[in-house]
Structures are given as C-alpha cells and as structure tokens.
C-alpha cells in the first residue's frame, strides 16, 4: 500500500520547491492512470477472450462435424463432343486423377480423351479382325475386360491406365500444352505437372488374349462376366457366358506355380449350368470373384441365381422376379464386396438387394435375395449404372439425361446432375475411382463430365441415429463398426450403441453410487459429531482426487478377476450386508438406553464398520454354500441359463418388495396395537417387539417371495436372459464399482454441503418440538435440501457420462445393445479414446468421433446446466429461510 501512496506523492510534480507546507497534488499521476487503463483493458480482453474460447470449443466441434451432413458439391461441369464417332460405346473409364477418360467402342476401338479439354489422344485398340463382339463385360475396377462373339468364342483382355512419374528432362520433345490447362501431351500420353518439378504420365495400354471357343461353333455369346480371384501364388480366373440357346457355362482357370521347378501349370475346367427357360432374353450375367454365385438376369426382371460352390454340380438356387410389374429390368450390378446387387428398372426405380440366409427359405442353399432398400426413383427409366471401386457409392443415369450420385448405405442421393442440353441419352456412364468425377457418353457423341466432391457419402442423420440395414445383416439395426482392412467393408457408423453404452454405464454406476453417497451424506451431516465429520469428509473427498486411470487399472486387472472368482458371494453381499446392518441396528436397540446414549457417537459408527466387515467376511465364507443354493453351484453356468433354476434368486430379488408388502399389511392389521405395545415404559420390551416383528416379517417375506417366484417360473418367467445373462470378465458391474469411486465422492460432497447449508434454526426448531434426529433429518432437513441433493446427483451423473479411462479399461468395449449387467459396453468417451488416435484427419471416422465428442459435450452441458439452475434456486431458497 505504501507503494501506492508514494506514487501519488511523487506524481504531483507541481509542488512549489521549498514550500513550508507540503500540499498534496490532487492530480492523479499519469503512470497510475496508464497502469489502470492497461490493467482494465488487459483484464477485459483476457476475460472476454476466455469466455469466447469456451464458446469456441463448441463452435469448433460443430464446425468439424457439419460436413458429415452436407451431401456433395459439384465442382465443375465439362462438356465436349467426340471428334470422330464410329460405334456405340460399350463402357467408359476414368483414371485415378480424373485426367483422362477411356471408352471402349463396340468394334473394339479404344478412344481416349483428355477430360478438361476434350482432346482426343491416340491409343492402342482391341483388334478383333473385323468381328463385332456380341457380349461385353468388365470388372468393377475396369481393368479386366471380356468380349463374347457371335461364333461362340471368347476373348479376355486387359485395359490398363498406366501411371508413371517422369522428370521434366525426360519429357518427349514434341509435347504440347493442352488448352488452358497445365497438362501436356505428345499425342499418346498425358503429362501432368506435380510438385517437385516432375510430371505424372498417364497412358492407356491394352492386352488381348487369343480367342477361346466356349459355346458351340456358331452359337453367339449373349452375356459374359469375368473375374480374377484366388491368391498371388494361385491366381484363378473365372468366366461365365450365356449363349444364344440360353445355356450358361462356367469355366475356371487356375494357375499353379510349381515350387521346385518354377513352372506354371494352368488348368481349365468348365461346367454347364441348368438351361434357362425358352425365350428368355438375357440382360446380363454376374458372378462373384470366388465364382461361387452366378446371377443371370433376364430383361423381364427374372433373376436366376445359381449356387456354384460345388463346381461339378452347380444348382439353380433361386429364381426371383425383380420386376413383378410391367416395367423391365434395365441394369443389374454388384456393389463392391459383391454382397449387394443394385437393380435399375425401366420405370426409374432403383433397388438394392441383399443375399441373406433366411429361415424357411425355399431356395436350395438357404439364402434368399431380399429387397433391402428402395431408393428414390428416377423420373425416367434407368439406362446405366456405374459403381464405385472403393465404397458403396454408385451413379445412376436415366433416360432424361439426369445422372444421380447415390450411396448404398445411406440411401441418399448425394448429387443430381443434369446434362448441359437438358436431355440426353447415355450409352455409358463412369464413376471415377476416387469418387470425385462422373462421366457420361451420350448417343449423340456429346460427353458430359462432372467433377464432384463427396467427402462423406455414408453419413446422414438417419445412418447415425436411425436403423440401417447393412450388408449381410438379417434386418435393419444399430451397429458401430468403424473400420476394417478392405475397401469392400461397409462402415457401420451408428452412434446409438455408443450412446446406449454411455447410458448403461451411467445407469448402473448411479444405481450403485447414489444410495451410498446420499446415505453417507445424510449420515455425515445429521448423525455424526463434527469432529468425526472433519475426519470422514476429507477421507471421502480424497477419493475424488484418485486419477481415473488408476481406478480403471485396479478395476480391470485386480477387481475383475477377483469378482469373477467370487461372483456369487459378491452378488449375495448386496443382500446379506444390508440385512446384517439392519440386524445389528435392531440388536443395538436392545441395549440399555444409557449405553446407547453414551456410545451413540463414534463408537457406534465404529461398530457399524465392524458389522460391515463381519458380514462381508461371513458372505465370503458362506459364498460357495450359498452359490450352491442360489446359483446351482456354478454362477456362470447359472447366468448363462444352462444350469439351475432362476427361482431362488428371483425370490431374493423380490424379497424387498415382499417385505414392504408384509410390513404394510401388518401395519394395517396390527399397527395400532403394535404402536401401543411399543409405547411401554420398558424400552427393552419395545425393542424386542420391534426386532421380533422385523425377523418375522423377514422370514414371511422370504416365504412370500419364494411363492411368487415359483408362480412366475410356472408362467415361464426367468430372471435370466435380460438384466442377468452370460458373464464376461470385464463387465458393467465392474465398471459400476470403479465408477463408484469416481462418482460417490462428488455426490457425497455436494449433497453434504447442501444438507449442511440448511439453516441451523430449522434443525433446532424441529428438535425442540420433540422430533428425533431421524425425524428431523427425513422430514425437515432432506426436503429443504432436496434441490441441492438433486443437483449433486446430476453433477455426479455428468461425471459418470464423461468418464473415459475406467470404461476404456474395465468395460470390454463391445458395442452391443444389451442391458445385461454381466456384459461389457462401449461408451462414447471410450470409443473416442480408442479410435481417434488412428483416425485420418478430416476423414469420415474423424468427423464421426468429433460428433461423438459433441454429443458428450451437449449431454453433460445440459445435465450440468440443469444441476446448476436447480442449485441456484436452492441457494436462494435456503437464503430466504
């Protein structure tokens, strides 16, 4: 303080020199004003800054999440006209960098265009010596092609877009710049500049194998499919063809390399499938990579599904009509993974079919094609479909010239693109390998290319929070399975199992923590000497500062195996220890009043703890015996439902209810006389009556509960199969215990503070009117402090919701929807901790985990705000009392 004074004195520069009376300047020193201003600004900026930061967290999380729900954007629409036009386009491809497009025309010519400028490039053609293919197909990635001919021959081939990196110095001399772009060409290949002064060279290469005679001479091949499979050491290729007589032939080529000699030996085997009905017009034929399923689709919508797992005896497994009404089937394609089929029809509908095992299926292999999804229909008939090589995205084109980008999992239409002319008829469409461009070949020689950006096609609000029918699943459901090794994997991103896991962990841990914490708080605040309180409260609070990683470790590695061994004793402890405590309480009442008063403080509390310990040890000792009684001697088998009956344990669970009922009934019948009897002068007699009544009621309730349980079991009710089911070592009960350590001290402290904050005069008044401490606590203190106690529970719940390390370590992390206490769970928080370190920045999983974090943020923020509001109300009320 002296500083300030000095400053003020020194600051006054206008004191006359040598004046006998020192006059104080009334002017504030400049430095003081400056310091004050600076502090003022700094503190304001700092304070507001922190507050903005707080809001910023939520905004930032939301900003990361938003792109999940914004379908796709069209970046660029390019149109050009082919310079020459000879034959119909069979198919169309785009390279990885959406630089060039490759068209195979019906006469085998290969046309390559630079997309951005429409410049035609030279390329090697498929030479058929004048023959015109009658059938054509290619693999999803486009590399492997197969042609069928009118004479019954088949030619396999490859169409490769080769990518290589060349130095600027290695560019051919005659390169020319392509239009306005940075790309260069020498007429054959395209060179795109990349960072580091190098160029990426893109060129098309073709390979065509010799013809193979598949169908009888002169029988045209109408449809074809060609797959490469097997392993690197033992590659297999399979070809399915359908000829003009309706006969489908499957041939399989297997190449084995002899380990010793290094020689390759190729075997070819062929088999004929059951003939199609006369007059079938074959639309297309599809085959899986393993060549174990063949689908022959007819134009009228009938699909013949062959089971070719047994190569020598293929079977027609199923015949299904995909187009029962007037419309015809126009396209049938596999989505990547070959688990689902997408069918486009002439009336514009687009359906997705799954092959699923079904009970009571009329097919020979027990599988059925099931229409899983009907997507938004086109206004005109579907003419072409191309599927993605890396996900469940596909593009559909209709007769009006509209091209829609869709996704099989989310069922949404990501982008709707129209042709530049407003209507066009397409021969072929292609989806770029990186799902970032679509190209469509018009019959009039106009090529339309759309550069698109669809970063998160698989997520919509519905896929995240609703039921989704995933491939291979019998029905729609909520599933979380975020990643796997292959592109064909369908990410299952439903937050519901995780939210459920969080709720389950919270509910069970609150069931354990709330009774203990609240009872302990009431006891500490109302029944304990302040000196005891000053020891007990910090002890409990110490629990709050235990790091949760420690709790998780102890729970998972020490507690879980221990509980697993002694599970029966642990379960029964929930019943035996409270009963023991009550028994001790009734016994205590029998003591002379003087003793009760003298030792009513700390000694009584010590005794309580001793009783707890004694009954805990008793439970431990009697555990195996009781396990034999309640759980048929083996808890795990019992919980599975494979051993014993549920009756004894059901009875045990029902006992509290039965006890309550019997208590009420005796109160009704003999309440008055009991009360009169107990108001005698003989305390001991009263206590004995009280205890006797308790014991009798307990036994009676046991009998009653057993009776009800037996009746229930007659009605085929079994306690097992819901909340109690198969035992897993790291389970929700363990999580509940461990979370108790984290949550109990929080609830305890806040509730105890609330109870303690009830004004002393209320307590004094109640006691003064003759109420006992118990009556005061329950009828006066607790109702007054109720909102504070409620806030305590809410704050505790907030902690349980967000707790991470305990659930990561002790919960087993299985994302299932199951209330079983003995099964694990996967909570939102644990999921973030486990998966975020591996998630690619800005990928779908990354954003999904941010959404999980945002969900947690919102849940806890809501819970805590509610608690805070209630608490503030309570404070006001308490202050006004």
């Amino acid at each position, binding site marked *: 303080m002296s500083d300030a004074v000095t400053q003020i004195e020194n600051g006054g520069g206008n004191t006359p020199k040598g004046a006998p009376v020192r006059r104080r300047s009334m002017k504030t020193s400049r430095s003081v004003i400056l310091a004050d201003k600076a502090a003022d600004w700094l503190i304001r900026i700092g304070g507001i800054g922190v507050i903005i930061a707080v809001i910023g967290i939520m905004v930032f999380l939301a900003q990361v999440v938003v792109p999940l729900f914004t379908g796709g954007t069209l970046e660029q629409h390019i149109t050009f006209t082919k310079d020459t036009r000879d034959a119909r386009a069979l198919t169309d491809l785009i390279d990885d960098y959406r630089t060039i497009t490759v068209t195979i025309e019906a006469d085998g010519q290969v046309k390559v265009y630079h997309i951005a400028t429409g410049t035609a490039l030279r390329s090697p053609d498929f030479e058929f010596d004048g023959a015109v293919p009658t059938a054509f197909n290619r693999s999803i990635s486009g590399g492997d092609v197969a042609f069928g001919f009118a004479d019954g021959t088949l030619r396999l081939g490859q169409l490769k877009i080769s990518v290589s990196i060349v130095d600027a110095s290695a560019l051919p001399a005659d390169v020319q710049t392509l239009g306005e772009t940075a790309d260069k060409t020498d007429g054959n290949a395209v060179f795109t500049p990349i960072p580091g002064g190098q160029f990426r060279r893109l060129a098309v290469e073709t390979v065509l194998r010799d013809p193979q005679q598949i169908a009888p001479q002169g029988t045209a091949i109408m449809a074809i499919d060609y797959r490469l499979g097997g392993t690197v050491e033992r590659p297999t290729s399979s070809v399915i063809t359908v000829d003009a007589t309706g006969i489908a032939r499957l041939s399989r080529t297997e190449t084995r390399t002899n380990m010793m000699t290094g020689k390759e030996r190729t075997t070819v085997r062929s088999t004929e499938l059951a003939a199609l009905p006369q007059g079938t017009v074959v639309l297309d034929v599809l085959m899986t990579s393993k060549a174990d399923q063949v689908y022959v689709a007819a134009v009228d919508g009938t699909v013949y599904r062959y089971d070719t797992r047994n190569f020598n005896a293929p079977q027609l497994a199923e015949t299904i009509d995909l187009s029962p009404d007037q419309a015809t089937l126009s396209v049938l394609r596999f989505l990547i993974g070959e688990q689902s089929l997408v069918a486009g029809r002439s009336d514009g509908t687009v359906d997705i079919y799954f092959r699923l095992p079904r009970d009571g299926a009329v097919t020979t292999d027990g599988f059925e094609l099931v229409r899983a999804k009907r997507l938004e229909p086109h206004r005109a008939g579907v003419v072409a479909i191309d599927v993605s090589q890396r996900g469940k995205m596909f593009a559909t084109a209709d007769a009006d010239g509209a091209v829609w980008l869709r996704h099989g999992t989310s069922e949404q239409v990501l982008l709707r693109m129209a042709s530049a002319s407003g209507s066009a008829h397409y021969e072929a469409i292609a989806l770029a390998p990186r799902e970032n461009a679509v190209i469509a070949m018009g019959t009039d020689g106009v090529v339309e290319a759309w550069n698109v950006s669809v970063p998160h096609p698989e997520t919509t609000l519905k896929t995240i929070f609703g039921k989704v029918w995933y491939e291979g699943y019998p029905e729609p459901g909520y599933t979380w399975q975020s990643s796997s090794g292959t592109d064909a994997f369908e990410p299952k991103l439903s937050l519901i199992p995780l939210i459920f896991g969080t709720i389950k962990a919270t509910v069970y841990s609150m069931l354990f923590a709330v009774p203990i914490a609240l009872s302990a708080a009431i006891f500490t605040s109302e029944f304990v000497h302040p000196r005891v309180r000053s020891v007990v409260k910090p002890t409990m609070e110490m629990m709050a500062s235990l790091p949760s990683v420690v709790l998780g470790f102890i729970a998972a590695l020490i507690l879980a195996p221990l509980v697993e061994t002694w599970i029966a004793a642990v379960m029964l402890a929930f019943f035996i220890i409270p009963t023991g405590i009550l028994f001790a309480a009734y016994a205590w009442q029998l003591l002379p009043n003087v003793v009760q008063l003298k030792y009513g403080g700390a000694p009584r*509390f010590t005794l309580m703890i001793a009783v707890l310990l004694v009954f805990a040890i008793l439970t431990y000792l009697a555990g195996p015996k009781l396990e034999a009684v309640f759980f048929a001697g083996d808890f795990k088998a019992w919980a599975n439902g494979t051993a014993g009956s549920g009756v004894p344990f059901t009875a045990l669970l029902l006992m509290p209810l039965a006890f309550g009922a019997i208590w009420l009934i005796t109160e009704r019948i003999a309440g008055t006389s009991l009360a009169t009897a107990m108001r005698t002068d003989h305390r001991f007699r009263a206590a004995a009556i009280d205890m006797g009544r308790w014991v009798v009621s307990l036994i009676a309730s046991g009998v009653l509960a057993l009776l009800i349980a037996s009746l229930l079991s007659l009605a085929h009710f079994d306690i097992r199969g819901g909340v109690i089911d198969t035992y897993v070592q790291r389970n929700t009960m363990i999580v509940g215990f461990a979370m108790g350590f984290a949550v109990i001290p929080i609830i305890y402290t806040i509730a105890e503070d609330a109870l303690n904050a009830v004004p002393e005069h209320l307590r004094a008044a109640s006691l003064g009117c003759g109420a006992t401490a118990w009556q005061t606590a329950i009828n006066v203190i607790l109702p007054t402090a109720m909102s504070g106690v409620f806030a305590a529970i809410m704050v505790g719940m907030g902690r349980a919701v967000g707790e991470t390390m305990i659930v990561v370590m002790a919960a087993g992390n299985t994302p299932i929807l199951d209330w079983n206490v003995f099964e694990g769970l996967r909570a939102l928080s644990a999921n973030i901790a486990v998966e975020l370190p591996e998630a690619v920045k800005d990928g779908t999983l990354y954003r999904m985990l941010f959404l999980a974090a945002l969900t947690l943020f919102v849940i806890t923020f809501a819970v805590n705000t509610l608690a805070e509001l209630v608490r503030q109300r309570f404070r006001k009320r308490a202050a006004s009392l």
Partner: protein
Amino acid sequence: MSAFMNPEQAVADRSAPTAQPRQRASDIRARGEPFTWALGGALGVGCLMIIGFLLMVFWNGVGTFVPKPIAVVTTTGGEITAGEATRTELYRPTPEVVAALSEAARQTIADRDGFAERTLYRIGNFDFYSEDFRWVSAFDVIDVKYPKDIVLVERTEWGPFIGHIESIAVDGEVIALDSVHDPRFAEAHAQARARWSQIQDIERHQIGAVNYRINQQRLTLRRIELKDGRDSQAYSETKRAADAETAELQSEYERLTEQAQALRQRNAGMTVTLEELGGREKTIGIDEIVRTYPANDLSSSEKISIYLSRWWEFLSDEPREANTEGGVMPAIFGTFAMTLLMVIAVAPFGVVTALYLREYATQGRLVAFVRISVNNLAGVPSIVYGVFGLGFFAYVLGGSIDQLFYPERLPNPTFGTGGLLWSALTLALLTVPVVIVATEEALSAVPRSMREGSLACGASKWQTIKYIVLPRALPGIMTGIILAMARGAGEVAPLMLVGVVKLAPELPVDGLFPYIHLERSFMHLGFHIYDVGFQSRNSEAGKPMVFVTTLLLIGLIFVMNISAIVVRNRLKKKFVGSQF
C-alpha cells in the same frame, strides 16, 4: 374428529394415570435406528472403499521392490519350478483336473466347496520357458525348498533369470565361480557396466547430438531453398557452408562410432554363463546384467540396499523391456514438465477471467449465464477437451505454425501433431474452470468494505485490486491453482489424443538448441499405468511396475492436494489479522 374428544373422557384419561404404565408420545421407531444404521453403513462402505483402496495400492507399491525368496517347488509330475511366489489365491479346478487327483486331494477340494489353492510363481527365464509366470496348485506340490545358492539375475533383455551363475569369461579367460559372492564377478560386472553406460552415453547423447546438428544443417539449407530457390546466391553459399559443417560432423560421428565400437569390443570379451535349474545354459554379456543377488541368502542390510537401489533405479532410470522394467524417469519428467507448462498457461487466464467476472463486468443476466457456463465446463468430460485439443491446437494451430515457421520440415509435422505444448494447453483449458471458480470465490470473500476503503483513499481500481484485493484472495487462488495441478496431473484420457506416447526417445528438455522442445511428445505417469497395465505382452509381468507407478502418481497428487490445504491455511493466517 379425535381432536375434539369429549371433556369427560379427557378428564377420565388424565385422572387414571396410575391404572396403567405411562405411555410415550412416540414409540421406539421414531428414532429410526435401523435407518440410521443403514445410512451409517453406507458411509462405512464409502470409507472402507477408500481406505481399502489406498491400503492395497500402498501395500503392493511399497512391497514390489522387496527382494523375495526364490522357492524351488517340486510337483507331482516331477517338474521343478523355481520362482518368487507372487500371490496365492483360491480357484475352482476343472472337473477333469479334479478327477485325476488322489482321493485325499479330492476330499480336500470337496471340503472347500470345490475350491483349491494355487500360487503364482514368477519363474523368469522367458528365453527358456516362453512364460514369465506359472501357477502351481497346492495339491500338486510335493516339496518346497529354498536353496541358498540360487541367484536372481536382472537382465536388460528377456526379464529376470533364476538359476545359477556357472562361470564368467574375462577377455577369453574362463573363470568358474564357486560361490555367489565371488568378488571376481562383482569386479568384472562393475567394469563391464561402467563401459556399458559409457557406450550408452556415446550412442544416446553424443551421437544423438551430432545427428541433431547434421539435421539442423539440412533443414537450414532446405529453408533457404524454399525461400530463395536452388539457383540463388544465398543457397550456394549456405550449401557450401553446410557441406563443410556436415563433413566435419560426419567425421565426428565416425569417431564416436569407432569409440563406441571399441568399448563394445572390450565388453564382448566379458561374458557370463548362466544355468537354469533344468540344466540348460546360456551365455550372455556381463554388461547385460543389471543386478544379481542370491535371493535366499541375503542379510537384512543387503535386502535394504537392494530395495533402495531398485527404488533409485525406478526413479532415475529409463524404462526397458517394453516399459515393464527399469525406471520411469522420463514419465516423471514429462508429468512435471506438462503440469508446469499447464500452470503457466492456466494461472494468468483463470485469474484474469475471474477478475473480469467479479470486478469489471456488470453483474447481470449475461454474467450469470457466463458463470453457469464456466461452472459447467468443469463438468465437461476431459476426453472432449482432448478431441478439441487434437482438432484445434494440433491440427489447426499447429498446422498453421508448421506452414509459417517450419516449412522446411514438411511434410513431417513439427507442431502439427500432438506434443507437450498442446497437451499443456489442452489441460489448461480443462482446468481453467477450477481456477476461475476458486478465484471468484476468493475474490468474493474479500470484504466490500476493504475495496471501498481503498477507493475512498484515492487508489485507482487497479491499485485497489493489486494491493488490497489480490493479496487477500491469494490463498484461495493458490488453492485453486494447486487443485488444478492435481486434476491435470491425474488426467490421462485427453493426453492420449494430444501427445502422450508410450516411449519417448528424447526428453522435451535437453542440451541442444533451443533447449526446450515444446513440440516433442512425452511420457506421462498416468499413461504409463495404462500402457504397462494394458498394452504390454504380459499384464502380470507389468503389474508390479504399475503398482509402483500408481503409488507414485497418487502420492504426487496427494502431496499437491495437501500442499493446497497447507498453503491455504498458512496464507489465511497471514491475513487473518488484517481483516476488518
């Protein structure tokens, strides 16, 4: 209607008190004794939970480093198991096992309701047995001996060895050892270990420093290249200088490598041959032995010295054997560095915000809302802060810093990934509500009269805050900061996302410019517990380590909490006299 008793009856009641015993207004049930006991029981459960927990951690943590005797157990199969008994428990043998037992053993099990006793032995010798631990059931045991000549050898690889030391070889000369206490072994061991630490020093620190400087040269050059291009004058000049410097460093590097190689060569001549109880032998370098002692032939003072040296190793050494052995020094250092940085970040912001809310902002609806928000932030799950820290600090902020200041290192991230700084900032964000709430409470406890008095004396607002308010609020603020430290030190979940690693090759502080490397990832005691307990090959082998680490972490946090209380009390006393 009973309230309106007719007077005669009332008189009659009152007039006949002697006829029957006096009745109380309420019966014994009004005292609610059973309910009270239920409440007390709950408190008892809570207290038992915490006390039991602490005792268990303390017992296991303190006992871990005590050298335990090695039992040699012969079982019915004739198999010999030698190891430290770690724990004994009851279990249920499967029916097939029970069926194969003798009548008497079956009877014992039946008497215990199907439970049998078994002991877990730490048998070591992972290189021979491919397991660290073995359960031995009590009914299988024929004989347990504690031979005096058996030794436990702690090695740098393959975990402990249990058996005998056959012989040692010093520079090719084989010396058979007849006793465990042979001084020649101790001498050779000391020599080899000294060289070993020299090699470590050369390879880890000196060569590390050279590599670091070579890399610095490369980065400097790259920076110039990015700035001025390859053809510029500056580039060619720098390149010349850098090349010269690099060549020099390269020769330095080679010199050091040779030096290390020479030491290694000398150590290669010093080997020890170990023999396990089954008779299989293994020869390893003496320098691979950390410590060896005859477990069953130790005096108390030797036991104490081994115990203390293990503690010292734990506190001062780096971890080895996938973190399940050795020390946790980098983790202790990381925890401290991170907590310190966090306090530097959180204290000013927390205090300034509280000052703003309490002293500057107009108290109204908005401030009340902000206050609720701040309170709530304390309840937002820590993992959410971790997610924010990763997304915002590491990727957005760090990414921009990399673009601006470290373009020469791209695409390798410098600040654009998890690290010490981002961890500290994330935890600062997490703990800022704690400091705000504590400071606000402390500020509101300063009587208004003092502020008014100061202002009335002519002090400015800032002067009042600086000289009157803050000193009196200091105890509360300190408490808040220390509690924030305790919370921060125990938090693991967010750190898993923003920079903690299981094994950090370099400490965030070292002797190389710029000395403090805030971008480096670091080790943390809490994460060490998670990692060793859950990610290691054998969680049983890591358990002792986890317990000691837990003890250390809990100890650290309790010390912080207690110091918060002490600081509060002391400062309170200091200012208690100046209260108006």
